[in-house]
């Protein structure tokens, strides 16, 4: 079941969600058995920023009914650390590499996208716009105009495919997607996590060190399906659908609503090889009654 993502041929349609699989750490744990049965058909890095970040204070995780809240806070080595420390290891990936970047405004995003897009190892750039623009104070990804401005600047600095990761915490994700397309994006991916929080049952204080976090997992699947449908109605660029995908059936649902690829996030925490299983199940489902692509 071959597929493609913004023109990049893939051996199949299963990606990981950014920040839910670390190739380098997984290889430390599993050794080269990871390469032999790599679970994804393209690999998306955890989001990197210009400067290194420690991330949020722990605790960072809370299990919810059929889901997970995380408040990780984008810990990463920063652009230089990534290029020098991580990228050499990522050359060993058996699949195309997508680098996720986040910046506090269009200029920073463009610097990041330009730098990573210039590297041969990088097949595509994903823009994580679920963060406030320090200049405007708005969450870039919840505002169509802010998103368009960012995409335009990025478009000017790289010829590599640009994918915009949409936030679900927006009144009209379809409008944001349409703005991204007009501004030159090659694809959109969705959903990122839903804003959420939990209290410590013992103290009544917020559990997470970062106070609020993002909800993922099966609990958000219905929301993700609806947003993919709404976005598919507004754009003709490629869509990477995600949010609670745990089975081939779920993946088929995203594909039949208009996604061309599907990403697996939280389910990989339950089963590191979930991507393989889901790809296998998807082929079975697709061979049956249901069309896997619209």
């Amino acid at each position, binding site marked *: 079941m071959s597929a493609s993502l913004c023109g990049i041929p893939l051996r199949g349609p299963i990606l990981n969600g950014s920040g839910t699989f670390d190739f380098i750490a997984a290889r430390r744990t599993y*050794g080269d058995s990871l390469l032999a049965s790599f679970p994804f058909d393209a690999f998306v890095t955890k989001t990197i920023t210009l400067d290194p970040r420690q991330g949020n204070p722990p605790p960072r995780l809370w299990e919810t009914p059929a889901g997970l809240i995380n408040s990780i806070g984008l810990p990463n080595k920063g652009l230089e650390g990534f290029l020098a420390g991580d990228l050499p290891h990522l050359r060993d990936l058996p699949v195309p590499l997508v680098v996720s970047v986040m910046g506090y405004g269009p200029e920073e995003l463009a610097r990041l996208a330009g730098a990573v897009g210039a590297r041969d190892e990088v097949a595509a750039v994903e823009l994580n716009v679920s963060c406030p623009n320090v200049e405007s104070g708005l969450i870039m990804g919840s505002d169509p105009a802010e998103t368009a401005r960012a995409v335009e600047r990025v478009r000017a600095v790289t010829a590599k495919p640009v994918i915009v990761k949409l936030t679900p915490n927006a009144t009209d994700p379809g409008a944001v997607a349409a703005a991204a397309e007009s501004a030159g994006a090659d694809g959109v991916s969705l959903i990122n996590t839903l804003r959420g929080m939990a209290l410590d049952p013992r103290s009544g204080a917020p559990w997470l*060190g970062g106070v609020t976090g993002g909800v993922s*997992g099966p609990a958000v699947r219905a929301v993700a399906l609806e947003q993919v449908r709404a976005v598919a109605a507004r754009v003709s660029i490629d869509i990477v659908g995600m949010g609670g995908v745990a089975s081939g059936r779920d993946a088929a649902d995203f594909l039949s609503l208009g996604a061309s690829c599907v990403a697996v996030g939280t389910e990989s925490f339950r089963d590191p090889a979930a991507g393989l299983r889901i790809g296998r199940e998807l082929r079975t489902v697709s061979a049956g009654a249901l069309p896997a692509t619209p």
Partner: protein
Amino acid sequence: MSEARTLAPFGRRLADVTACEELGGYVLLTARDRAGPVPRPGQFYMLATEDRWGGGEAERPYLPRAFSHARAADGTLTFLLEDVGPGTRRLSELVPGFRLWLNGPLGRGFEPPARGRPLLAGGGIGAAPLLCLQDEIGPEAQALLGFRNASFAVAAGLFAGEPLVATDDGSAGHPGFVTDLLREELERDPEATVYACGPPAMLEAVRALCAERGVPSQLALESGMACGYGACFGCVVPTRDGYVRLCVDGPVLAGDALESALVPGAGH
């Protein structure tokens, strides 16, 4: 430095439960992991029951839970569990014939002792990884074990040699803390190496005690984990070098690496 880390086969695998028995206040769960590699003491596994755990059918537990193996021999893994929530409860209810999902061995275990006599200091369920460490080193590794009361202290019977026991309520052994026992041992033998696992407050007391005396310590910490293999960045603990992911850079950390072993959100 060669790390105390056995690589895991990629993915999770099913293991047959061969026994699940109460041991005082704990549960001793045994499963066949024929194909699995031999883990290092201090490494751990992410466990879930095959049925009624997560995603498809159940709500919580949804994610797998982390457990140190207490024993590993002849393709059989033994876990010592304490029922503290939905995940440990579901595991405790297993009976032979059911199956476990397991992912591991994960993380970095204890380093073999570089000097002196090994002292194993355990608090409660923290005894688990010390047991296989003693299996490896031998009975000269003296176990010092603290428990709430005599019912939990039954677990001390798993250890070789003459484990010294302390209980909070004095119902068995020394009335007081395991750190009292450790202090005494260190008075007697300042050249020892300390291996410890237990609740945050106990680990912090051990860390401080060892730091004070320049005794090397290796502490097996706990923190809330979602994945266990470095994927989520959720399990970080603060060290002198900033946050590290306990599942790949730990769970065993050198006492020296820590400002404090009090990890926010860990323990129950």
